[in-house]
């Protein structure tokens, strides 16, 4: 029986109709395309009236297939599938062909654009007649969630879920949770003590009955899919038995080996070879840095083992891989600081008193290496003048084009702390002052009145080449004051570089493991930049915090909570719908060659040794088509994308093509 296809061409206001003669396309399809029973154009197909029109036509005219020529399936495929379902037609008998993003928005020639839409409609009709009804499938959602990263975003997500009664496994690669926020003294614009608001959350996570915490742990491998992920986690050898250790800290105290702490102290202070990053660390169990430990490098010492009252030190400990099952994964892997040495003209690491923003955070932190005293590298001299240089590695075509978003506020915070703690003059060299969030502009106004100086202009270089006595022994900042339109120079005792917020070095690699993608810069790509900011294109994988893009603390917390809410919603529902667009293997034709088994990115193909055939585990299959392409025998079929459907789509596209003269004499 011939199919009765309904074709609906959307104007999308003038989005499509402005570049495509939609009425002509609809008329043409009705008159010329095989199997088309009805062909219409309409202002907004996605409106309730547009959907109603489809439903009515299915019921009244007995349409058996629907083609909508409108926008991207990302936006409205579900809408039109639902309309079909409402009218009693299997939703997979509906084909949405994208004539907006793929045609009208990119075309410049109306006649050519109209012809292209004809081809796409013809292809969709040809394809849809071969589409088969598919039934949606549901799988159970494992209530456990994996949160990757114990910074503020990850902590918030963990607590939201744990407090709601759901089990959470939190992994963090450093020995303690806390993230960057633990390094700060104050937070802008409220100037409350960072540790005071963070550590309660840390200890809550550490003690929560629903939280399994693995610090010094990294993600090895993810398999499975939404609802049922299998995750392998590497627990790096701490060399300290967590069961026996009481966290008394005597090993740290007695350890004779001092190591420069480039992580938590940002190179401003030392730690021991056996250490916790900071006193309030959660958990309190120290780890041995085997690269620097005297015993591991020289074979003798063992002081920590000798002093440990519970014999918790275990030099033989090895990395351990554990496997857990989770329903969802929240990535909250954070950010790293721009390497300020990449801008040699600012002379970081060449001139002593040039600091990075993270170094300065530690310098003014009451628990930091100077107990919060703002002094220069000599450890005693208080600076009399400080320059803060904005946008170091941000908003710079040579490094990162984006605005790091938080540095202006952090610079204001530094200005306030300097003015509060010292008698120094403090200058901010900014390009534009970015203060858009709640109370940020007010904070800027406050610093203006507190006496911080602001110079609008980019600093060209920092040097120590004094031209006069006033500049002697100082850091000279060479800059352009764009408000005065003048090149100027000014001597300072100290320079702070507001380094950019950058993606973690291994963000792409980790994204690959979880099956999510990154932007060119390396930020994780959200499902929709406005409407779906914490979901990703991979179901069951969510992102929160600065791993998705530069963010301040409130935004990171909000995203952590948002991701947790999304996950909680899925757990509460209990099941998740999986697309029936999956692969299947014809067992008769399968020769058991074992090509497909290892290809599957979702580990969804099992091998039946007895029958020597491969089989798709439908609940795990995501319909990506890898095995369909790889199967040398051609016996794997991808539902909704079988050969017949694809070939007829191609034939439909080529509706006006002449057959090629291939074999003429």
């Amino acid at each position, binding site marked *: 029986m011939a199919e009765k296809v309904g074709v609906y061409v959307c104007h999308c206001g003038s989005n499509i109709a402005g570049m495509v003669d939609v009425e002509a396309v609809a008329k043409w399809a009705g008159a010329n395309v095989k199997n088309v029973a009805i062909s219409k154009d309409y202002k907004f197909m996605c409106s309730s009236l547009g959907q109603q029109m489809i439903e009515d036509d299915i019921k009244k005219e007995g349409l058996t297939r629907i083609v909508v020529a409108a926008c991207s399936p990302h936006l409205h495929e579900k809408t039109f599938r639902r309309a079909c379902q409402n009218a009693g037609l299997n939703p997979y008998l509906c084909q949405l062909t994208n004539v907006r993003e793929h045609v009208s928005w990119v075309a410049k020639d109306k006649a050519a654009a109209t012809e292209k839409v004809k081809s796409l409609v013809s292809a969709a009709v040809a394809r849809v007649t071969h589409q088969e009804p598919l039934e949606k499938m549901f799988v159970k959602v494992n209530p456990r969630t994996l949160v990757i990263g114990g910074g503020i975003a990850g902590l918030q997500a963990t607590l939201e879920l744990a407090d709601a009664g759901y089990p959470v496994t939190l992994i963090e690669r450093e020995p303690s949770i806390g993230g960057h926020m633990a390094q700060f003294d104050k937070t802008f614009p409220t100037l409350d003590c960072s540790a005071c608001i963070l550590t309660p959350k840390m200890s809550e996570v550490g003690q929560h009955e629903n939280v399994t915490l693995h610090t010094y742990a990294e993600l090895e491998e993810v398999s499975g899919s939404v609802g049922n992920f299998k995750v392998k986690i590497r627990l790096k050898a701490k060399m300290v038995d967590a069961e026996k250790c009481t966290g008394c800290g005597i090993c740290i105290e007695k350890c004779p080996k001092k190591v420069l702490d480039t992580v938590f102290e940002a190179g401003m202070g030392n730690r021991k070879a056996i250490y916790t990053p900071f006193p309030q660390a959660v958990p309190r169990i120290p780890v041995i840095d085997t690269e620097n430990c005297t015993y591991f490098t020289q074979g003798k010492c063992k002081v920590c083992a000798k002093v440990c009252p519970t014999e918790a030190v275990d030099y033989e400990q090895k990395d351990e891989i554990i496997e857990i099952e989770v329903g969802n994964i929240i990535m909250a892997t954070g950010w790293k600081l721009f390497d300020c040495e990449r801008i040699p003209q600012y002379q970081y690491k060449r001139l002593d008193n040039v600091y990075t923003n993270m170094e300065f955070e530690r310098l003014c932190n009451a628990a930091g290496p100077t107990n919060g005293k703002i002094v220069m590298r000599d450890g005693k001299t208080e600076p009399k003048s400080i320059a803060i240089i904005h946008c170091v590695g941000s908003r710079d075509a040579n490094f990162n084009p984006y605005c790091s978003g938080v540095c202006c506020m952090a610079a204001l915070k530094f200005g306030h702390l300097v003015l509060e703690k010292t008698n120094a003059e403090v200058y901010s060299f900014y390009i534009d002052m970015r203060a858009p969030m709640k109370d940020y502009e007010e904070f800027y106004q406050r610093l203006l009145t507190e006496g911080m100086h602001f110079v609008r202009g980019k600093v060209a270089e920092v040097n120590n080449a004094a031209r006069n006595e006033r500049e002697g022994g100082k850091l000279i900042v060479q800059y352009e004051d764009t408000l005065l339109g003048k090149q100027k120079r000014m001597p300072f005792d100290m320079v702070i570089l507001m380094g950019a917020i950058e993606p973690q070095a291994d963000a792409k690699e980790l994204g690959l493991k979880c099956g999510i993608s990154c932007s060119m810069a390396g930020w994780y790509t959200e499902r929709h930049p406005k409407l779906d900011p914490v979901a990703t294109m991979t179901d069951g994988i969510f992102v929160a915090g600065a791993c998705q893009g530069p963010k301040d603390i409130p935004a990171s917390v909000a995203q952590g909570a948002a991701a947790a809410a999304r996950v909680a919603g899925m757990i509460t529902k209990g099941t998740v719908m999986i697309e029936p667009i999956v692969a299947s293997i014809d067992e008769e034709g399968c020769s058991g060659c*074992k090509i497909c088994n290892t290809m599957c990115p979702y580990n969804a193909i099992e091998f039946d040794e007895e029958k020597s055939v491969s089989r798709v585990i439908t609940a795990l299959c995501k319909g990506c088509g890898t095995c369909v392409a790889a199967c040398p025998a051609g016996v794997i079929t991808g539902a909704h994308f079988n050969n017949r459907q694809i070939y007829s789509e191609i034939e439909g596209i080529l509706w006006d093509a002449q057959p090629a003269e291939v074999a003429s004499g």
Partner: protein
Amino acid sequence: MSEATATSAKTKGKLAIYWAASCGGCEISILAIDEKILDVGNAFDIVMFPCGADGKVRDVEQMPDGAIDVCLFNGGIRTSEQEYMAQLMRRKSKVLVAFGSCASEGCIPGLGNMSDRKQIFDTVYKEGSSTYPVNPKDERPQAETKMPEGTLHLPIFYDTLKTLDQTVDVDYYLPGCPPEAENIWKAIVAILEGKLPPKGSTIGVNTTVCDECKRTRHEKKIKKFHRTWQIIPNEEECLLEQGLLCCGLATRAGCGSLCPQVNSPCIGCHGPNDGVEDFGARLMSAMASVIDSNDPEEIDGIIKDGIPDPVGTFYRFSLAKSLLRRKNKAAIAN
């Protein structure tokens, strides 16, 4: 149709065996059914079999259409004469079988589709080391040559070799280069008993050579492809896993895994499974799946070193039947 075949078998049906662009191996294979050829002789009058029996074209031309019950046609279509014979045999036969790889897929003669008539003639009549002194005036075969006695005709040699089904409608396909004697006998029995699959089918099984291969298989990860003369593979493990480009995993079974059994990789003569449009593309995407590297440069190296002749490797038998059918003629001219 099956009933008609069965009835005609009782009353001694008519069988034709014809050849076009092929090597003659198919005929040898038919004779390799040994004494059973006598059973064939009992069941059929062989009306046309240029290699094995007498029979004239003009006799066939004079038969009523559909007078021949079964025609086993081997060879591809390269010349106007072969094209005429394909059309003639089609018209005169109730059942036309594309017999063997050449008729079904073009086979080795089909690799000529990487060049064209001019290039082939240049090689044969001009550049060949044996032809130069013989053909100093660079004479080429002409379709018509006027002589005092009258006009001489030669078949036109086409640029492109076509498969039988690109020339005429084909009822069945029998795979293999050549089809194995036991499969030929099975096909003849099926014809005699009227137990034929639906029109358009390949007579044989629909699974691949791995199914019949006894070697042990593991995960396939290939760092280097070897050519057959470079290594002596062990006799237990999958040849592909040992780095030999074995086509068995994409090739229709039915041969009993003959080549892998004697430690030689399958070269793909049975063509693909049902539903596979392009054997070479299918095999290539399978091979792409097993190369064990994520580094584009390393992958290039693995392919260039191990597969110096990709067309001859992946399309050894099926170039004429592939989606592209031939190398672009303009590209050859340049």
